[in-house]
């Protein structure tokens, strides 16, 4: 069994106790009590489970925990420790871009990864398109779209 370790929000995590078939989503929520990362569908469709792996957005519901051995995992709990994550969080608050809030961690993490990966000069239409992997079932996409635009402005 491939043992090893990973870092979650900067802290080392020993994976030797984690069963081989466990998903990263479950390790985060139930083993590490980081409940910010949400389970919406468990089939890759909704983006609620998005985390950053070495800075890149990934679906924790479709990732076996041992597959991220050696990587650095960032969840919504630590996303605002970085400059871009902080701007994204503030933009979501300023625009009131949440109703029930269930989808919000996924949006915040995915947008932070996206803005870090692409230049802030990326056209808004491209950013909106690239956020297509995140679904919201209640607040509507108007405020979320405005939060995306606001976050982009804030880091330019």
């Amino acid at each position, binding site marked *: 069994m491939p043992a090893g370790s990973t870092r979650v929000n900067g802290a080392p995590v020993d994976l030797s106790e984690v069963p081989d078939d466990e998903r990263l989503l479950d390790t985060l929520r139930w083993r590490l009590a980081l409940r910010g990362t949400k389970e919406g569908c468990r089939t890759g469709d909704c983006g609620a489970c998005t985390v950053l792996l070495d800075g890149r957005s990934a679906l924790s519901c479709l*990732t076996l925990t*041992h597959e991220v051995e050696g990587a650095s995992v960032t969840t919504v709990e630590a996303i605002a420790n970085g400059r871009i994550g902080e701007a994204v969080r503030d933009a979501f608050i300023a625009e009131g871009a949440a109703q029930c809030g269930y989808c919000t961690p996924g949006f915040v993490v995915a947008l932070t990864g996206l803005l870090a990966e692409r230049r802030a000069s990326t056209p808004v239409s491209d950013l909106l398109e690239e956020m297509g992997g995140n679904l919201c079932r209640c607040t509507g996409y108007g405020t979320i779209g405005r939060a995306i635009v606001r976050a982009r402005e804030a880091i330019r």
Partner: protein
Amino acid sequence: MGFTLVAPERPEEACEILASAAPGQVAVLAGGTDLLLDLDSGRSHPDRVLSLRRLPWRSLQWNGPTLTIGSTLPLSEIEVDPVVRARIPGLWDAIHGVGSLQLRHRATLGGNLGRASPTSDLIPMLLALDASVEIVGVQGIRSVPVDEFVLASRSTALRVGELIASISIPEARPSAYVWQRVRPSNDISQVGVAVARASRAPFWRVALGGVTPRPVRLPEAERELRAERPLTPEVVRAAEAAATHAPFATDKRATETYRRQLVGVLVRRAIAMVSAPLDRPVGWA
């Protein structure tokens, strides 16, 4: 579930593990975006899962005109390569349209070929680019054209103990991939059309996804396109041939009639994109 995960570092070890197991006992894991759904549904219930993550296959290399892409390189890494985007725009179109960015950060080309879905967005483009699959196995290495590799849904030419090491595209081609879906992200294409223009006659390749039992090239449409820069009547005949001869069926995503209507439009659009590439953006804006 309850499987053990093995992650060998050398291809020979990985092939050995596969060769020494009974059928279905070992499942192969690349990005996992198809396999993990099969594990959840119970369609796959292996004792062991063979992870490819430590194998030295995450590469992208040009050798002269040929582009070789390692089977386990995440799709997003191909997408951000500015040379690939400029020289094989259709490959960029096809990859960029897969799922979502979160998904493409882990999903791979090897996994897409391994799954061999009739609705794959990547197999039609690989067909239009005359790509081939480099396979390693306990018996050695072999190369198989994508057209002979993909047999039907979940069925490929891989033999026991074999893995996809890389995918090779023999030359960069002006190309385009266009699709129709209900939603642009995380949805399955009702029809996908890949078009590429080779450097020598016969110039044109037209391939389709959303057909049964696997993505196919469409020689009836290709034959109508003789000139390097075809005029409208040729393009219209090619689109009509595609609508007539594509092996479409009705399923929960679309009716056969709708697909036939659609494919003509998409074929014309894709050929136009290849013929007049000037207004296509290159690189992240």
